């Protein structure tokens, strides 16, 4: 009870210092272990709303949602945790538990995501971007230096410049992949318990199929209150925008 009151006191604040954020995080964890999942979920959400999110908070929020039976939200937050912090063992394990509880079985879906998506998921965006910038600047700088060096030292500088520029090209390609995936592929998770996918973006449209909470889909386009989704096996339909949440 005292813990709940403490959580309530924290929830009212508009800004959290790092210490307050850590205290609220710990209290939310305690609430989780007392099986007061709703209190834990609310606290994690507040941390995210106040800019104190991150992969750890997202992972705990997803896990609490999963324990509380909120399958759609659980998959959403665990996917966000994976995107924010990269793949990790605990995120993958809990995502596997969530997928096992899913109602939908997508028949004919390829076991793996497309190559570019896998490549983007496997390479940390920040590291790739930093690698590109540093190798690119270093390569061009060394190339410029060659003009002012004596012939004996010029060869070494040119070799280093070639090495840096090669690294810049490959890391630049990875940055381009990240940009492409981010700009063109919007993934989302079905958060509504059940969602009808229609042939046309209107209420009277014929229902093609129905999807349920926790299913990962791709958002293709938006029309009013409807959004066109694509399942991993290529099945497409229009559904209510509120029923899906982008990762």
């Amino acid at each position, binding site marked *: 009870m005292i813990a709940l009151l403490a959580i309530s006191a924290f929830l009212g604040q508009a800004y959290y210092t790092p210490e307050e954020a*850590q205290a609220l995080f710990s209290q939310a964890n305690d609430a989780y272990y007392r099986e007061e999942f709703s209190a834990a979920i609310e606290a994690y959400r507040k941390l995210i709303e106040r800019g*104190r*999110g*991150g992969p750890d908070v997202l992972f705990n929020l997803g896990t609490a949602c999963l324990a509380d039976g909120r399958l759609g939200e659980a998959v959403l937050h665990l996917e966000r945790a994976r995107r924010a912090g990269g793949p990790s063992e*605990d995120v993958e394990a*809990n995502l596997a538990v969530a997928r096992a509880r899913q109602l939908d079985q997508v028949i004919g879906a390829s076991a793996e995501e497309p190559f570019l998506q896998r490549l983007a998921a496997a390479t940390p*965006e*920040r590291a790739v971007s930093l690698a590109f910038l540093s190798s690119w600047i270093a390569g061009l700088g060394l*190339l410029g230096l060659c003009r002012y060096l004596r012939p004996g030292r010029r060869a070494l500088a040119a070799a280093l410049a070639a090495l840096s520029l090669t690294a810049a090209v490959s890391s630049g390609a990875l940055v381009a992949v990240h940009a492409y995936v981010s700009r063109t592929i919007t993934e989302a998770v079905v958060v509504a318990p059940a969602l009808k996918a229609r042939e046309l973006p209107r209420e009277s449209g014929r229902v093609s199929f129905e999807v349920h909470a926790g299913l990962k889909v791709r958002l293709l386009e938006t029309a009013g209150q409807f959004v066109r989704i694509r399942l991993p096996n290529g099945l497409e339909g229009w559904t209510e925008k509120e029923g899906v949440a982008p990762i």
Partner: protein
Amino acid sequence: MTRTGDSALRWAGPAAAALSVLLSSTALAEVELYQSVDRNEVGTEDTFRLSIVVSGAPDTAQLQFPAPEDFEVLSRSQSTQMSYHFGGGGSSIKRVQKYELVMRANRAGTLTIPPAVLTTADRTYKTEAIEMQVKKGRLHTSPPPSPRRPTLPDPFRNFPVPSFPDPFGDLDDPMGFEPEIPRSDSDLFLRFHLDKEEVYVGEQTTLSLYIFSRLDVSSIDPVVMPKLEGFWSEELDSPSQLIAEQKVIDGVPYKAYLLRRRALFPMKPGALQIQPAEADITTGLMFAAHRSHRKSNALAVKVKPMPPGAPAAFSQGNVGRWRLANELSQTEVALGQPITAKVVLEGRGNLKSVSLPKLAAPPQIRVYEPTTSDKPASVKNQLGGKRVQEYLLMPQQTGTFTLPGLSFAFFNPETGAYEESKTDPIQVTALPGAGGANAIASGGPTPTSPDDSAKNKLEPAGLKPLRYQASFAAAAQPLWSRPYFIPLALAPLGLWVGATVLAMVRGALGREDEASRKRKKARAARARLAAAEKLAQKGTPDEFYGEVEKALLHLLEAKLGGPAQGLTRPQLDERMAAHGVPAERRAKVLSVLETCEMGRYAPGGGNAARGRALDDAEEAMEGWESR
């Protein structure tokens, strides 16, 4: 057909014997005859009672009952009373015979019951006709009172008997209904009866099929029941022998035979129809047997939907009045030993349609698929019973674990509300088994076939634990999409291009014309002369005179606009002349060059000669530059 009532049959025997003794010594009283009805205003659906009383009539007297065309006689009964009078004039006996006819009007209007006629040996007696006002339909809801025997006082009424609440006490008597006597076939008819005509989806209504007969029923051929579409039907009663039950309908005695009784559970809301049943009935015996085909009435059931607001755990078939319980065979068990858990649901309703909650257990306890057994029961024609689900639990680890409480949500049609029956959580303690890890650690003989079930199995299961510490960060924008990323990536290229352009500009700007080249060479000549001046004291003659010579040649190149090195003196003189250099100056220059050559190849003269050569060179150069 004339029938004698129960009371008449019971008392007629002894009374007749007494009457025969008395009649031999006494005289009969005066004859009286009259008739009356219990009500004069009836409906066409009502029955009424016509009483005809004959008093003091001789045995030979014949009574002729009225035979009205507008009325139907449903039944007749007779009773006799004897009274004795002892007075001064001797004793007298009075016999009173009472006939009762249950009648029903065939049409509406003002109808007349004709008089009854009694004929004796010497006279004919006649009653008054009775006028009846008959209206259409039913005017009286309660049937005319039938004669009843006086009830005796209860001999146990003062005993202190404790009273227990009857769980089915609120249920109706299945024969507590009175069918309407049909106009045709009133002596033998089939009737369907429902105990409830308005029910909720899934609530039981009991359908009974009876034969009502005033004849002796000897056999019934197979009854054809309707399909009962829209209902889940369970048989409650299907008697193999005909058992008659006395039933008085509108004052008319009938024998009621139950043919079928079924529990019906409607499966959808709306108005559901029950079509008539049919049967072939044989009445009478042997040669007097008569076979009749009869069809029952049809019925309609109004089925109400269940109200909104069902709990999340509610299943559509969970309707009735139920109680959930769970029990464990033991709460403390050795690792590797099984526990039996029973989930028991008991109550009233359609047992086959209920869904029991699934027993949940922590991951440390393996739960095997349950076995389900049903014990249906019906009390006072209400279906119910007990469903038992038996689970086998096998702890996989040592420790104390909690089996969470169960909740069974159901709709109670009696209260019209959703209710929940809950059980408490149960704790189970699993202890290390005798044949498990402990036995091996004690150094005893290694078991030949170790029992895996007795091991403390530490398998990964369930969710991964939460992260204990967090690095808080707002959702970061990708680095490549930040505004500075592209400028930063293009900056080295820009620098590279800028440097190249600058070099080109500098190259373009640094191109020398003839004049500047001459000036440059002149400056170089002066620099050389300054160097020669420094060498005048310390340098070798070759260095000194070489510098002076180079200074002059640079000057010539600057002034003449072409190479001067390697030219002979006449050639130099010629070029100087071509450039308009005065002869005196030409001579001076050539003289200095001569001096330098001599000084380099024939050293001598000392510092004084070097000084003169330097002065001559300076004079030649200054004179030239001043031009």
